[in-house]
């Protein structure tokens, strides 16, 4: 048993060093960690609390980047239509965008994992019903399903998380089922069944860990999709309410000033969004190469 655990650890360590071999991927990882730290540290890092109306000065509205502020500081990235420091608004917006993306992905992964394992292990009618639902859902683009759900549900942070979970779970269910079906007939599962272990133990302790690599790859890509989708929906006015401005909403706010050349209100939140998604995609890209058995050397 101890040997097996050790072998498992060294496999992960081997994969980690394989991952680190790619400079772009490491750059993505470092960038992502920095972005997460910036989002977590927003209350201490940002020059201003963008939600505290007493700190805002309407006379400072729509100032270009680098303009001096009334309180002696500078609007490094300019200010928006309410005289809000854009850098502060972006840091706080990042918290919401990342939070919504990560939470919805975690819920969807859990749901998809359970459903996928159920379909693979039970087989038969369970499998065909679940997979039929998955297939039908996946034949429609995520944005369409999310649009309709939000049209029905209305705005709010819980509702957009519900929409993002609904959109994502099917990907995980299909991935896990595929992996579990491939693993199910291998000797170690037969051996575990021969030992008389309970179904729950076999599924959770033996089957599940071996289904994780493909799940991790899909989830890493999906987090980025979820963040982008939330931003898109908020931009269309169907996502988060104005009281919880995510990056998408900040970009939407700047839309009307864009045509008069005041680019920064839309530009900088978009750059923050882009950097977040790029960093996740760089990591995901390398994860796929490292964890794909078909490309293993």
């Amino acid at each position, binding site marked *: 048993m101890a040997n097996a655990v050790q072998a498992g650890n060294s496999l992960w360590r081997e994969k980690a060093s394989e991952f680190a071999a790619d400079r772009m991927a490491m750059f993505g990882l470092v960038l992502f960690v920095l972005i997460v730290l910036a989002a977590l540290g927003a209350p201490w890092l940002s020059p201003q609390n963008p939600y505290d109306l007493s700190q805002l000065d309407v006379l400072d509205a729509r100032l270009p980047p680098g303009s001096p502020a009334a309180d002696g500081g500078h609007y490094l990235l300019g200010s928006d239509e309410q005289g809000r420091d854009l850098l502060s608004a972006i840091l706080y917006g990042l918290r919401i965008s990342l939070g919504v993306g990560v939470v919805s992905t975690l819920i969807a992964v859990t749901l998809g994992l359970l459903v996928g394992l159920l379909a693979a292990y039970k087989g038969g009618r369970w499998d065909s019903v679940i997979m039929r639902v998955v297939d039908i859902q996946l034949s429609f683009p995520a944005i369409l399903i999310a649009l*309709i759900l939000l049209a029905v549900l209305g705005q709010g942070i819980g509702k957009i998380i519900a929409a993002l979970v609904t959109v994502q779970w099917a990907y995980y269910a299909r991935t896990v089922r595929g992996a579990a079906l491939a693993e199910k007939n291998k000797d170690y599962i037969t051996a575990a069944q021969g030992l008389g272990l309970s179904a729950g133990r076999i599924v959770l302790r033996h089957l599940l860990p071996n289904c994780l690599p493909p799940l991790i790859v899909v989830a890493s890509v999906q987090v980025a999709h979820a963040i982008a989708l939330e*931003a*898109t929906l908020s931009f*269309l006015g169907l996502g988060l309410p104005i009281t919880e401005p995510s990056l*998408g909403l900040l970009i939407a706010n700047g839309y009307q000033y864009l045509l008069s050349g005041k680019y920064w209100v839309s530009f900088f939140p978009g750059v923050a*969004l*882009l950097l977040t998604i*790029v960093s996740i*995609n760089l990591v995901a890209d390398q994860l796929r190469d490292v964890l794909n058995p078909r490309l293993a050397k």
Partner: protein
Amino acid sequence: MLAFLLRRLTQSLLVLLAMSVLVFVGVYLIGNPVDILISSQADQTERDRAIVALGLDKPLWAQYGNFVLGAVTGDLGRSFAHGVPALELILNRMPATLELAFVAMLLAVGIGIPLGLIAGLRPNGVIGKTIMAGSILGFSLPTFWVGLMLIMLFAVFLGWLPSNGRGETREIFGVGWSFLTADGWSHLILPAVNLALFKLSLLIRLTRAGVREALAMDYVKFARAKGLSASRIVGVHVLKNIMIPIVTVIGLEFGSVVAFAVVTESVFAWPGMGKLLIDSINVLDRPVIVAYLLIIVSLFVFINLLVDLAYSALDPRVRLGDVGAH
């Protein structure tokens, strides 16, 4: 073949029926359209009359029954907001969306596959790495933000291209098309590039992955051993084999391009059916929302069928009739 088509058609009809129930019930739960459509000064009798006129006084199942009866005869209800049949409203907007989607898809295929081929053949070269870095960027750029940046650069700062609308159109068979006039093209190109970007990156990555896997296969090694030229190996053997997943994706992604046009149309004020959907959601125009969804679902079902047929034509191992046999 006939059996396959029949089975697929029955299955498609079931999906359509299930979707129509889900959407109808879901959309029915959204707010009360009467509040939006009737002025707040209207008295109770006026409200009641409007509710009866819109058919909102009947129970849900009766409304759904009426809807299905109408749908079978091509009547998807009358738009609350515009007062014209919802189907007509959407069909009027459809050419604009299809035009945008086609041009975007052509751009994505025409640029994506050659770039993916280059990146797959030279995975470690500078050009290959640059193409892949570019595709990650294209994959990561949020569509709506790219749209804004395109407007900012080409419409506001450079002033080269217009920022919204379809421009001048010319009619064929009573439908106006932008791609027939120079002014139309100047309006079309920015939204099309915007919509193409994501699919372009997808095709680059898909082609590259296919080429990389194919190059390691025995048949490629064998072709090399036979002394075939590199261009023949790539052009005939590799390309033919990787085209199967690529054609599938092109087909499937066309539907997703039509759906994603919702975003691009909103950014560029392109008068297609995606913009109509967003406008309809904002005013709770139920018949239009439901009709849009049924049309989109039908479109997807149709596309999936075409993809399956194309699949069987490209891959002789696929025998459509034997799906249930093994």
